[in-house]
């Protein structure tokens, strides 16, 4: 009897608070959801999303809101994990959001996109590049980043045309993103007639990559493309220098982060190439310049990762769509983005539009080099993608 009593009371404790919790407020504010990894291995990126978007939300609210209503950001943490992602997606649905930005990684975006599709919520991912995501025929799913294969093609051209490499290597870190990009790179490189003499992965949990680097040194490559993240990129550069190896590194956009230079040290990082979406400071659009200035003012440093920018981009696209259609109906917004949205001056370059699958049209990648001061600078000589892309498509 005692036990029963105790358990009953325990149940009451759990159920009690649930039964009386406040329901999501209907009415005034326009709710926009953000799901991303606020904890876990990618916490840095998720928190960057939050910084970038809340800055814009504050700006909008300071200017009187959207359609005369304030905008409220509902933040949920998915820790980059698909299970958590499904749980927080349900929470955002319950909160009554109009649109959701997220998630960071494709694995987390996948189950969430299913739920948002069921519920008819506009869903834009700033950073999930897995090809499959837009192939499910979801009407209200978009992405503002580019697919893996675009960048892979660009990287191959950069290595072949700009660096004149014949014998190249590809290194990834076994993450969803890096592996996809690495495999596309290998495919395009072989199509372009380059010799892919080295293809391997590192374990991102490691600190010490010297065994791998020793092997790369032995392979005698003209250039090697690393598709993983900046933390490992920095360690690779640093240990390359420590081993005294002569390796020409080209990094993918996941490594486009000033912290990589910090980790590697300026001397070790100098001379490394990076393929990425153009950095905001290299864009002439007033929106981009303004955003970077505001961000720097608010947080003391410019946005470190390209994905933060793209999160802000996704938010701007949603706001733009709401303004243009004067509607908060996700169906109307999605229809607008598919059909009428074009030539929008984005933070990461002009957005030509979205195709029927929800993928961003065009490509805007650029080649950067880390200069002697450790600054990531726009490289004067750029590969010419349009012509070759037409070729590749043909």
């Amino acid at each position: 009897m005692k036990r029963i009593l105790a358990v009953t009371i325990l149940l009451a404790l759990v159920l009690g608070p649930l039964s009386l919790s406040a329901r999501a407020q209907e009415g005034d504010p326009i709710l926009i959801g953000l799901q991303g990894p606020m904890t876990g291995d990618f916490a840095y990126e998720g928190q960057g999303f939050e910084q970038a978007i809340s800055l814009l939300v504050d700006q909008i609210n300071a200017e009187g809101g959207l359609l005369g209503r304030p905008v409220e950001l509902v933040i949920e943490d998915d820790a980059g994990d698909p299970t958590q992602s499904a749980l927080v997606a349900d929470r955002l649905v319950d909160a009554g959001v109009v649109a959701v930005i997220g998630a960071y990684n494709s694995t987390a975006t996948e189950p969430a996109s299913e739920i948002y599709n069921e519920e008819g919520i506009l869903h834009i991912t700033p950073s999930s590049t897995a090809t499959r995501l837009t192939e499910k025929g979801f009407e209200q799913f978009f992405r503002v980043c580019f697919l893996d294969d675009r960048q892979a093609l660009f990287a191959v051209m950069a290595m072949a045309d700009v660096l004149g490499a014949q014998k190249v290597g590809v290194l990834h870190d076994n993450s969803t993103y890096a592996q996809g990009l690495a495999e596309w790179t290998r495919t395009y490189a072989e199509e372009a007639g380059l010799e892919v003499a080295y293809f391997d992965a590192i374990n991102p949990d490691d600190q010490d990559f010297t065994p791998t680097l020793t092997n790369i040194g032995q392979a005698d490559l003209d250039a090697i493309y690393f598709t993983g993240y900046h933390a490992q990129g920095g360690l690779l550069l640093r240990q390359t220098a420590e081993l005294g190896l002569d390796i020409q590194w080209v990094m993918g956009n996941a490594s486009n982060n000033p912290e990589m230079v910090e980790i590697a040290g300026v001397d070790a990082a100098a001379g490394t190439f990076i393929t990425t979406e153009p950095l905001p400071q290299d864009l002439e659009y007033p929106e981009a310049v303004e955003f970077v200035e505001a961000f720097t003012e608010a947080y003391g440093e410019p946005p470190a990762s390209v994905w933060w920018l793209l999160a802000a981009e996704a938010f701007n696209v949603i706001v733009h769509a709401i303004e243009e259609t004067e509607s908060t109906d996700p169906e109307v917004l999605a229809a607008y983005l598919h059909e009428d949205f074009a030539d929008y001056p984005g933070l990461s370059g002009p957005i030509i539009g979205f195709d029927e699958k929800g993928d961003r049209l065009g490509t805007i990648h650029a080649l950067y080099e880390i200069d002697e001061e450790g600054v990531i600078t726009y490289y004067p000589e750029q590969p010419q993608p349009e012509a070759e892309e037409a070729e590749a498509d043909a």
Partner: protein
Amino acid sequence: METFLQQLINGLTIGGFYAVVALGYTMVYGVLKLINFAHGDMFMWGTLAGWGLLTTVFAGLLDLDLIAVLIVAIVVMAFIGLLGMTIERVAYRPLRSAGRLSPIISALGAAFALQAVARNVSEARWRTYPEGLLKEMPDLHLSGTVGLSGLQILMLGVCAAVMIGLYLFVQRTRIGTAMRAVSLDHNVSRLMGINVDRIISLVFFIGPALGGLAGVMIGTYYGSFNFTLGWVFGLKAFIAAILGGIGNIPGAVLGGFILGISETMVVAYGPDLGLVDASAWKDAIAYVLLIAILITRPTGILGETVAEKV
């Protein structure tokens, strides 16, 4: 041959770090028969604390970087040692006779808590030690391109000194012998007049302090770290301790080097032997090695054959 030598040196360096961290696991296991899952995170706290000190208080001392690093290492060792004693006091001592399941949960809980604090302190970012730390040390060239950097020599030297020092301490001194006695039988040790709680506290000071030292060394050597370092590295070091025979100090050292060198060799020669993606599989190979050794020699390579009380 040159490649082999270079890879051997690479493996020795990693192995040395594994060994120092493994010492902490092995000592605690010896006296308490407890897998101290929080040890990896205490080691990570060492890296974190070293970073904190070197980038703030000791930033002015960096011209004399060897001295600065030395002082920081000592301060961190004391701090992490005290942390270890506190954790033992709070999380393990009340559970000393509560069976073998509860302390594992308690240890994992302590690990979670430590990691959460570190994540929030480091803002979940990769943090970097001051650039160019201890870079001015003379290198040693063996032959051709094979050589050890000054930093590598220093790290290996410190590892060796720690291991030898600890071994002598445990084998030759009265307190060290008392530690061995406690690891054999708590009650009989009490009958000898040994204050068992104090010895355990001491073990929980030394082990984590060595972990803290390894933390600072890793920070200095690799230059950057994040809060997940302890979990991954700690698990590997623990495997090293088991490989060598847990509870056994030379065993931990041997296990550390075996693990470090075999990992390196798998990465270096795996592809030649038809193992594609060797580096990605290398951890799995470490685990397979562990299982193989435990199946054939259940108490590890140097493990004592004294039957374990269940």
